[in-house]
């Protein structure tokens, strides 16, 4: 796993918050899909944002949606 700090995960959080005017925070356990912070058409951008912030190349053929559902899961898997 590459060395990262919480500021890297903040890039992901900021990307999510920039997509909505209704929120200024996201709970680490909040389901991003259910909350509609990410949908099918923004999922690609979301994955690219996580790749850039984490420095981890994500295998396109091994994507498990559960690894992307919450900020906590993303941090655990990619940071």
């Amino acid at each position, binding site marked *: 796993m590459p060395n990262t700090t919480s500021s890297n995960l903040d890039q992901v959080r900021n990307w999510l918050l920039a*997509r909505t005017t209704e929120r200024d925070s996201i709970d680490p356990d909040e389901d991003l899909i259910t909350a509609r912070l990410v*949908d*099918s058409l923004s999922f690609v951008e979301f994955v690219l944002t996580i790749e850039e912030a984490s420095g981890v190349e994500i295998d396109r053929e091994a994507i498990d949606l559960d690894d992307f559902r919450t900020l906590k899961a993303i941090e655990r898997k990619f940071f």
Partner: protein
Amino acid sequence: MISELISKDERFQEILERLNRKSVEDYYNPYRMFEWPDSLPENRWWMSPELTTTYGTEVAAELDQEQLYRLSRYESINFYSLNVDGIRDLIIEVTRRIHTRGFEIPSEFFHHFIGEENEHMWFFAEFCQRYGEKIYRQVESSGQDETWPEAASFLVFVRILLFEELVDHFNSTMALDERLHDTIRAVNRIHHQDESRHIAFGRELVSLLFEDLKTKASPERLDEIREYIKRYVNYSFESLFNPQVYRDAGIPEPFAVRRRLLASPRSAEFQQQVLRKPLNFLVKTGILHDRNLAPTGLPTARGNS
């Protein structure tokens, strides 16, 4: 009901018959159709430069000729890879509908369509593996979508049509581009010939499905669907800008490059060029009210950098 609309529409049925006939008459064996040299020259354009994502941007101005050729090679592999992934999805969706209620009359054409698409997928994959040693896998869209059961088939065929029209802009340009190797031109030419039939069919079917949808969906729902289609157009276009391509071409900071390119004024212009025909069609049929693709709801990569 869509089957009623189709069975009453003589013009649609005549077009279908003509397209079915053309598919039989023009049938070819793709496995014997192409000459596949062992390698293609590297120091040459692999894709018309005007179709590459960096064309006319500051990013291109920072690259030398050799880097531009190299980039065009990986961009072309990405383009054919997009075809492989896109065709997989459309074969699945059309196969789901063949010989089911509502699609009795177009099912004959669906047989040609599925068969031809399978062959296209083969020669695009062959090209990628021979000359790029890889197929770029796209991130599959995941997550929740709005569920509009009344619009499901309409949206499937709109997505297929947009994909085919986008690809065809590239194929028709590259088929005629003398700067490209003969094998590259041939792959694009053959695909363009088959796709002309698929696009003609797609436009007719989408028009009919939209007539059907208008009887079932409220004006508010139609506006939501319009917004979705515009987002889908942006999503498709942005798939041309693949950071893995920039990385493979040896360009530093591939994510930042992608953002720069998408934010550049050229990208909006390029998008309108690439999608000129389908946007004209969508506006003419009333499926969209205008050609303005700037997001009004959620931002895209270009509105959120």
